[in-house]
């Protein structure tokens, strides 16, 4: 990011913020928090007549947008709908159109711990861990109750469609992975029939939550939202990769599954069973194993050169190993 480009962003951004916050505003600070080819995040401190507002600007990156993710316009729209439905999402202030040629939107900038390992392990967050399972269940129940017709841009799919898409992504990797094939074959033979199809967050887990000592502050990272079986979302934070080293705590390294599931069922009126969580936990491991392989391809193809994406290709073996153990247990 050159100084000139940063200044251009600053000038255009201020113009686009006037309709939202009025003409008497000034940018006090604008700093790129996270770059990357697909999405940028900017911390923005905006002086307004009511005081300084701490904002976050999400903007497209210069490279190819990840295929399976929402556009920034749709992500902003979804946040508006979720926020209005009482979900603890960061308050969105509006879609900004293109800022120096790339789409962007602005939301409140929330505080809280987001690093999974700290949330699972730091002593000062023990109180948060005690209340997080029920709070995660509450947020999922609220998200799953959002009327799907409010977010018509979300893609829908039943349990078999999920597996078809995963198989297609695995084929795109062009490297044989018999452990993943075994998991896909197992899942295909046991996939449930299409039942409820609801709004799913798609990536709700420890690591994508802003957590304070009081517990769950905000639900972040909405770009993988889609429509599907609610159990897919409920089982996702059980995946071992999201336990951050605290393996014996099956729910995200922070708690037990049973109270979380009971709370979700009570709030949603559904009757999701532990057995169906087992199925979707296996699918979750498939999803993240294949995700790790495709992320490494973003580096290998030159789409987004990154040591992090490169190394993650080798870590797919962790998910394969977990997958095989789950298959062994499931029989």
């Amino acid at each position, binding site marked *: 990011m050159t100084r000139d480009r940063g200044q251009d962003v600053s000038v255009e951004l201020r113009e686009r913020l006037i309709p939202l916050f009025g003409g008497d505003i000034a940018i006090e600070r604008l700093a790129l928090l996270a770059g990357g080819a697909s999405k940028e995040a900017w911390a923005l401190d905006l002086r307004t007549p009511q005081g300084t507002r701490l904002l976050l600007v999400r903007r497209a990156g210069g490279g190819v947008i990840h295929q399976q993710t929402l556009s920034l316009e749709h992500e902003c729209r979804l946040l508006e709908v979720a926020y209005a439905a009482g979900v603890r999402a960061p308050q969105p202030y509006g879609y900004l159109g293109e800022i120096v040629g790339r789409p962007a939107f602005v939301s409140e900038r929330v505080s809280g711990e987001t690093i999974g390992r700290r949330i699972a392990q730091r002593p000062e967050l023990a109180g948060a861990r005690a209340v997080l399972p029920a709070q995660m269940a509450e947020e999922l129940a609220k998200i799953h109750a959002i009327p799907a017709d409010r977010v018509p841009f979300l893609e829908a799919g039943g349990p078999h469609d999920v597996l078809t898409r995963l198989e297609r992504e695995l084929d795109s990797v062009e490297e044989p992975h018999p452990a993943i094939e075994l998991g896909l074959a197992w899942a295909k033979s046991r996939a449930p029939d299409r039942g409820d199809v609801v709004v799913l967050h798609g990536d709700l887990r420890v690591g994508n939550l802003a957590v304070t000592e009081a517990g769950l502050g905000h639900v972040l990272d909405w770009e993988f939202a889609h429509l599907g079986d609610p159990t897919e979302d409920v089982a996702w934070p059980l995946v071992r990769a999201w336990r951050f080293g605290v393996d014996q705590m099956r729910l995200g390294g922070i708690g037990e599954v049973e109270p979380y599931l009971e709370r979700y069922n009570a709030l949603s009126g559904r009757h999701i069973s532990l057995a169906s969580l087992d199925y979707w936990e296996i699918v979750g491991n498939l999803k993240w194993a294949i995700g790790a392989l495709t992320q490494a391809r973003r580096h290998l193809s030159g789409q987004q050169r990154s040591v992090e994406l490169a190394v993650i290709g080798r870590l797919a073996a962790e998910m394969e*190993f977990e997958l095989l153990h789950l298959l062994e247990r499931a029989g």
Partner: protein
Amino acid sequence: MQDRPRADELAEAVREFIETEVLPTTDDPRLRFRALVAANGLGILEREIAVGAPLVRREVGALMRLLGSADSVPDDLDELRRRASDLNRELSRRIRAGDAPEGTLVHLLATVADKLRVASPRYLERYR
């Protein structure tokens, strides 16, 4: 013949530089994270140089037994890697066709454990 340091010694030297000189002087959390990832990547490289060849030989032998192949096991490392890839492709095709050989799960548990001996040995310990 290249002079010393050997490939594994060079990877080790770069990893130690990141761990002892870069990380202690880096405050930016994003840069710190990527430096840790880079050091981890070099650790993978060091382990692959040390044990990669015997592990791929073991994998080819196991795949040939599983798939009932009577070919001889090649000596050349590139040839071994090609064979491992071909046999894994054959195994993948059979699993997808619903024709997984008897013993596939046990074979894969051993083979993926061998991948982790290079990629992430500490993760493997979490299953003991």
